[in-house]
């Protein structure tokens, strides 16, 4: 029987110290225990999909990039590849490799950012700063190769507009060595420190069945043993690289941290391999006319699977562009996970799915 008078509703967000971005949750609590979490979103909704009316398909590439400032490169890339498929053009191999390198750099900086935010959420400020310090090395490489720290604008329909020459490749390799070395030190703290372990182990467990039923994606799903990674679909240069998704069986916050940490090391390996194998050649192929047709493109972003649906009817302006981002798919699983947890863990659990609200709300 429900005991009346003991449940109360606590609002969480939109402006909250642990959240870098606004999301609002109504937490129904019994004493200190969360019974239910009801999300409400829309604080960052801009309606950028509707800009197709006002911008042509080439300009939309830059709008798509600004869906999210963290995985901006992959947003632009996913959109461009969808349009390229409609045109039926094949991007040159060199462009595919370059896109892969930038994607993996993006994944590294996103995961390092998340590791820092996680450390901040469990109150380890020093670790937060260390992660962000290392992340700056990755950002420097992005700036060196594209000119932008976060928003690159190097994609276009048909390929890329900038090259990574041998000098820059060397600089990237050097930075990768440094990141690998420094991250190995921090890794010990994440995985061997007992106070970190006590905050992460056994918290917010989701089983593979729950993940599948609720449709969660990305490292969040992989931490529960679901081997879902869109890179296996083999877009860009991934089929030619040694790639195997990283998974864990535990499904708790610790496993999520473990998966993302290992993915940073994996990205380093992928970048090294891509640089070793990169072929010479053109950066883009010319595309003529306007697109006509529709296509679904799926890419693996740092937070999981994102898809782009593009529908065109032979006019410069697209008929429809739809983006479904990973956090959107992860919210139902988040709400399930929040049930039966302590209020003190809510911040940590929200952070553990690596929410990106501005993608979600577009």
């Amino acid at each position, binding site marked *: 029987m429900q005991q009346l008078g003991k449940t109360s509703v606590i609002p969480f967000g939109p*402006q909250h110290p642990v959240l870098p971005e*606004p999301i609002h949750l109504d937490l129904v609590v019994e004493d200190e225990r969360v019974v239910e979490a009801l999300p409400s979103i829309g604080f960052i*909704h801009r*309606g950028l999909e509707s800009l197709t009316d006002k911008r042509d398909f080439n300009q939309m590439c830059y709008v798509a990039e*600004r869906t999210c*400032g963290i995985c*901006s490169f992959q947003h632009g890339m996913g959109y461009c590849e969808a349009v390229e498929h409609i045109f039926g053009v094949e991007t040159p191999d060199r462009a595919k490799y370059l896109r892969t390198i930038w994607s993996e750099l993006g994944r590294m900086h996103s995961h390092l950012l998340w590791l820092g935010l996680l450390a901040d959420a469990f109150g380890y400020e020093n670790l937060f700063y260390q992660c962000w*310090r290392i992340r700056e090395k990755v950002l420097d490489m992005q700036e060196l190769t594209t000119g932008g720290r976060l928003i690159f604008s190097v994609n276009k329909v048909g390929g890329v507009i900038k090259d990574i020459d041998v000098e820059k490749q060397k600089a990237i390799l050097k930075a990768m060595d440094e990141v690998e070395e420094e991250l190995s030190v921090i890794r010990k703290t994440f995985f061997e420190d007992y106070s970190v372990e006590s905050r992460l182990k056994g918290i917010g467990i989701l089983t593979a069945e729950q993940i599948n039923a609720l449709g969660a994606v990305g490292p969040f799903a992989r931490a529960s043993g679901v081997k879902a990674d869109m890179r296996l679909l083999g877009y860009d240069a991934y089929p030619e690289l040694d790639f195997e998704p990283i998974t864990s069986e535990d499904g708790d916050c610790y496993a999520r941290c473990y998966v993302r940490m290992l993915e940073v090391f994996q990205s380093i390996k992928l970048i090294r391999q891509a640089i070793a194998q990169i072929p010479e050649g053109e950066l883009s192929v010319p595309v003529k006319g306007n697109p006509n047709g529709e296509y679904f493109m799926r890419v693996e972003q740092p937070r999981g699977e994102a898809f782009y649906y593009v529908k065109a009817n032979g006019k410069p302006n697209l008929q429809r562009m739809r983006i479904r981002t990973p956090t959107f798919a992860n919210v139902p699983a988040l709400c399930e996970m929040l049930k039966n947890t302590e209020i003190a863990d809510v911040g940590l659990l929200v952070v553990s799915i690596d929410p990106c609200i*501005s*993608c979600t709300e577009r």
Partner: protein
Amino acid sequence: MANIKRSPWLLHYDGSSCNGCDIEVLACLTPVYDAERFGVMNTGDPMQADILLITGGINSQNEATVKQLYDQMPRPKVVVAVGVCACTGGVFKDCYNILGGADTVIPVDIYVPGCAARPQAIIDGIVQAVDLFQKRSDEHDALVKEKKRKAKEGAARG
């Protein structure tokens, strides 16, 4: 900037940004750029904040939140709009849900351009905000002093 007498606290709110500017604001507070060397400190509580850094444009959902945050901050206060989105609406200006830059609902003192705004530009904005805050505080103090003096005189005459 020569003689900082006060340590204002910063509040950061993400309007409807794409996250790019947000992350740069956070990066400013971390070791490489370390904006805290100018005597500022990041806080999550509007009631304790002196400088509001706002990123992203205003939409119909966050309009009330932004206004409320601004009202909750004690006087004197300074507002810095970071990124072109917060300045004018930026790339999203023509979107149906964007009302415009931050200045459509609250007074903005300092505009930091860029998409994403670079950390150096954000730090410049913060430094200007610290200066302005100092000036406003001095004016505020003078006003309070004057008021007290008048009250005292009134009491003496009483």
